[in-house]
């Protein structure tokens, strides 16, 4: 299941790609990254999974490397970066479901995600996590717009 991790943040993404590209010449072991950045699993893995799902890095067997799209992201300006994220979100939950719904309230999409067997947000913190993710990734990348009682896809 390709999904944006509830703990993944835009700033972490740029941090990860920047470090990979400028400090490790595009490729390293994950443990090296952990040591160099003095981060732990909780800090590191959410953004590694998410960046990988977005196609900005390739992570397998303990290695991580930046993809062509990732390099393009680092070298772009803000609008171009937003464009890259926006295009990459379409096939990743919860945005895939959001796209199919068009406009929705938080409760609607929680229900729909349950129907679609996306377990990530099906917990006590889930509503808050989902709201933050929709805002952090969706509104930031201009994929979504905030409406009075929920969100609306503006692609």
């Amino acid at each position, binding site marked *: 299941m390709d999904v944006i991790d509830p*703990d993944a*943040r835009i700033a972490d993404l740029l941090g990860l790609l920047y470090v990979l590209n400028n400090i490790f010449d595009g490729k390293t072991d994950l443990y090296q990254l952990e040591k160099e950045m003095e981060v732990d699993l909780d800090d590191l893995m959410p953004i590694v999974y998410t960046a990988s799902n977005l196609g900005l890095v390739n992570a397998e067997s303990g290695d991580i490397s930046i993809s062509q799209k990732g390099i393009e992201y680092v070298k772009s300006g803000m609008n171009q970066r937003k464009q890259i994220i926006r295009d990459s979100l379409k096939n990743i939950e919860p945005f895939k479901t959001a796209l199919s719904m068009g406009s929705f309230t938080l409760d609607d999409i929680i229900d729909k995600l349950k129907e679609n067997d996306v377990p990530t947000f099906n917990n*006590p*913190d889930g*509503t*808050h*996590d989902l709201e*933050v993710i929709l805002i952090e990734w969706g509104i930031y990348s201009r994929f979504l717009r905030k409406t009075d009682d929920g969100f609306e896809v503006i692609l």
Partner: protein
Amino acid sequence: MAAIILITLAVLATVARVIGLIILSIIAGWFLAYASIKSKFFENIYIILIEIFESVPVITFFPIVLIIFITRIGGPLGVELAADFLVFTAVVWNIWMGEYQAFKTVPREMVEVVENSRFGLFAKLRYLYIPFSVPRITANLFPSISDGFFYITVSEVFEVGVHTYQTFGIGSVLDTFVADGQLFNIEMALLIMGIAIVAIIVVLREFSKYAVGRYTLDTDAPVMKRGRLNIRETARVFAVLSKNPLTRLARYYKYREADKHEETYEKKEKKRKIYKYIYAAIGIIILAAVLYGAVSLITSVKLSEWGVLIGKTPSLLTGLGYDYIRVGTILVISMAIAIFLGYYLAVNRRAEKYWIPIIQSLSAYPAPIYFPFLFILTEPFIFGIFGVFTNELYVLSLGFISTFYYVFYSFWMGVKAMPSEYWEVTRNLKLGYFKKMRKVVIPSTFPYLISGISSTINSAWGGLMIGEYWPDIYGTHSLTVHAGLMKTIDIATATGDIALAAWGSLIFGIIVAVYSVLFTRKMMDLAQKKYVAEEGVYSA
């Protein structure tokens, strides 16, 4: 039908009086709190005065207040103002203290942001200080509402000598019904009053939810991770907590926090000295007004009368001794029940959901209004069992029902605010019920308990003031005890012996204030030093 309209109007008048005075205290409190964070001098006077007035039951000032309002102002306006004053002094201290604490704990960074933008006084208040104080005000509103309604029966109708003064409201309307024995109207009045109070509590609970969602900072109880603030986790914790806003509100309840934001690296600003002088001057004026009131009262009493008063002092002190025993009894019973019931409700969500609103409504429903009817219903039965102690028992019960709520509410808030880590520790160590209570729950709620105890003592005095001498509680029955300072003051007021009433109040005020300074403040300091549970959990 006409009676019901009259009752409804009377309830509305009373509600408007209480709510209006609460709003007035909130607004005045903002400016006073601002003055006290700007001037150390003003702050010292202000806080001492609040603490004294908070610990001296307002009703004991009432005779003095009456003289001032009725002799100096007079007419319906004087009576109305006297009633307003009594309600005002009942509601104001909690709120002012809450606002002061809020202003005192505004994060310095936020202050710097508004300074950076060059805000003037009103802009600072509007955009920063006032919104920041909303959770604390809200947390203090529940007890203030109860306090405000408590005195309506005695503030809306009172007798001095042969004169009876009254002002329009449910208290005075009910008094007429009782005098004429109109049972149906009495029932309607109690019912409509009940509906109004439940409505107020419901609105207040809704407002609390809103206030918590809107006005609290995520960093009030930050989740730290390796010494860094973990905003992600903190926000998540609060998102979950805010589903039960009263839990969140517990953090803003009135126990005093140490001044965390005292100058850490800044030096006191030398500029704007002029404002400091202005605030200091306001402080001096307030102090002078209080002193003037006291002195002018003392000088207005004739020398011969002083002799009489001083002669009566030993018996007044004995009465006070009896009253202290009564207050102590009420306190012990209230605490015992509050601790067991409060704990039970705090850990049983289902029971809590129904019982807390019920207890809140009951507490806001002024005990003196329904107490006579309890008395009518139970007196023959109780008299059969307790004989000569019947009256004593009723006075203690009135004290209990008028005060129980405060210690209960504080303790319950304290349990709600207990860090979850403590619960886990008690489970981990398999502590039994009493051990858990003694070693963990009571110590960690200590600051809350202390503030609850001081409010309880305070209202217990109010209950005694009303109960120790209650002529014609129904029909020709009177409720009275054999000795007590409150009784003496009551009788002196009723017979027009204002000098004795004032002298009794003064002695009482001084002793209670000294007691509060020596005992309550000491306990408060101890609570802060040793028992701030939130500091016991530290994530490095």
